[in-house]
């Protein structure tokens, strides 16, 4: 919608019936203004409602994905019969299982040695006989020469080698000692030789060369340098904390509380989105009544609620304890999950499916609505954005016209005021003249 340009252009065009033009122009201006005000308010409300639907669809999709993850992972929880000896975590296991760590004969520790002798002045006392040294860490040798042949110089040099060890100085009453510790655990060789080309004397002790983790899993001996074990049992990660002569049981078993928790979240999100959609349907529908997104969401919610399976004990949401009351609101009875047989739980996982099948497969459907860049709701909102911007441009144009009209009225008032003042002055003159004539003609003023 647009207004015709105003035909008057300034103070010199007063020959037209300015007042009538202004009156008509203002009346015309009011019509589109009200229309645009109403339209703009509707657009804002529609955008807000769509935002709510988007959030609802995203929430439902997220809970559906969580259900799929729970089903795929069989809701497995890990446990250790002796958590103080071995701590355990499920890192992606998909089958229930039990393992026995028969014994832990050694836990992994890092090599750590000190200089055999103490040095009086760590910054001055010579450490080596020639200034030449060789550090041995595992199978790697690091040969170097010290310009500052003292404890500080040696410590700093070792720390720059990148040998996987850390050197420090221990200060005691008997003198200063060099401490060298491996950065990682495991049995190794750690030595520091003075004058490697000559006397080749090891300057550090050889009492703590590190240890490996050693244990037996279901009768199979396992030997590794770290206490974190994540490559032996698929989907199960455990950490050995101390040695043990007795067996430790590690198990992966279905935790039904994970399933009930995921289903509760799903029902909450389902009801949230259903409420938002219902508010835009029927006689009391909001501004999104008849909207494509609302229709599609409603259709997908019905598809979701009526999902059926012909396999096993779980054939519908009802079998999972999810029912719909008279108003269509979903309700969840967790006791139903607790009462399922083991086969029933397994069938529940099948019914829930994964990202491409079963109930969880609906996640992709609802993400098509809520996707923040190219989702259906985003595209709808972008269309509303364009309409809003168009309205704003028209608002600016009309505001400019109103300003022009106001300036014209102001000039008109100033001119009329000046003329009235001139006229009043003339009337005073004429009045005085007429009174003078009355005195001359009738001998009195009238």
């Amino acid at each position, binding site marked *: 919608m647009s207004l015709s340009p105003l035909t008057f252009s300034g103070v010199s065009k007063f*020959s037209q*019936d300015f007042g009538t033009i202004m009156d008509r122009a203002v009346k015309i201006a009011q019509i589109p203004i009200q229309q645009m005000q109403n339209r703009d308010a509707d657009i804002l409300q529609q955008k807000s409602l769509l*935002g709510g639907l988007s959030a609802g669809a995203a929430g439902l999709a997220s809970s559906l994905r969580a259900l799929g993850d729970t089903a795929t992972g069989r809701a497995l929880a890990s446990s250790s019969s002796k958590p103080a000896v071995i701590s355990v975590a499920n890192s992606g296991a998909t089958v229930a299982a039990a393992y026995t760590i028969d014994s832990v004969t050694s836990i992994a520790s890092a090599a750590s040695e000190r200089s055999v002798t103490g040095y009086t002045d760590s910054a001055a006392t010579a450490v080596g006989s020639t200034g030449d040294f060789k550090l041995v860490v595992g199978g790697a040798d690091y040969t170097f020469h010290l310009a500052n042949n003292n404890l500080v110089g040696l410590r700093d040099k070792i720390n720059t080698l990148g040998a996987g060890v850390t050197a420090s100085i221990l200060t005691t009453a008997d003198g200063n000692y060099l401490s060298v510790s491996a950065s990682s655990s495991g049995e190794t060789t750690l030595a520091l030789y003075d004058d490697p080309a000559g006397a080749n004397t090891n300057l550090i002790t050889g009492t703590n060369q590190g240890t490996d983790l050693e244990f037996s899993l279901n009768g199979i001996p396992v030997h590794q340098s770290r206490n974190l074990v994540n490559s032996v049992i698929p989907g199960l990660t455990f950490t050995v904390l101390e040695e043990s002569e007795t067996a430790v049981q590690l198990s992966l078993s279905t935790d039904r509380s994970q399933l009930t928790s995921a289903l509760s979240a799903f029902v909450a999100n389902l009801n949230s989105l259903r409420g938002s959609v219902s508010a835009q349907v029927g006689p009391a529908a909001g501004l999104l009544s008849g909207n494509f997104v609302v229709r599609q969401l409603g259709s997908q919610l019905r598809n979701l609620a009526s999902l059926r399976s012909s396999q096993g004990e779980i054939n519908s949401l009802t079998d999972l304890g999810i029912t719909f009351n008279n108003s269509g609101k979903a309700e969840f009875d967790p006791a139903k999950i607790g009462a399922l047989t083991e086969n029933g739980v397994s069938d529940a996982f099948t019914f829930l499916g994964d990202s491409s099948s079963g109930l969880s497969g609906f996640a992709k459907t609802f993400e098509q609505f809520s996707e923040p860049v190219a989702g259906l709701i985003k595209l709808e909102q972008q269309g509303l954005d364009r309409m809003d911007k168009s309205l704003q441009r028209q*608002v600016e144009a009309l505001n400019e016209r109103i300003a022009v009209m106001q300036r014209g009225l102001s000039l008109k008032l100033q001119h009329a005021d000046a003329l009235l003042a001139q006229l009043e002055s003339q009337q005073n*003159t*004429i009045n005085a003249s007429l009174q003078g004539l009355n005195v001359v003609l009738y001998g009195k003023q009238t």
Partner: protein
Amino acid sequence: MNTPNALEEASTHAVAAAQLKDLEALADALEMRSHALEAGDLPTVGVHAAGELTAHLLRDLIRETTIESARLRQVGDAFGRDAGASIGIDSTG
């Protein structure tokens, strides 16, 4: 030299211009009226009455213009407020 009825003629023009709300024509008529008075034309009761009628019409015009201006201000203020409210809306909701 103005004719004796120059003042009456100018007053009549002023009334006509005021009725048409033609401020330029009214300005010309009042200018002619001033010249006639300065030239010594004698006023009549009719001239005086025409002046009063012109003043009355002019006051009406000022009042109408003032009202129109106020209405226009109302429209502009209300529109400006709502227009501003629609700026910066997050389309993600």
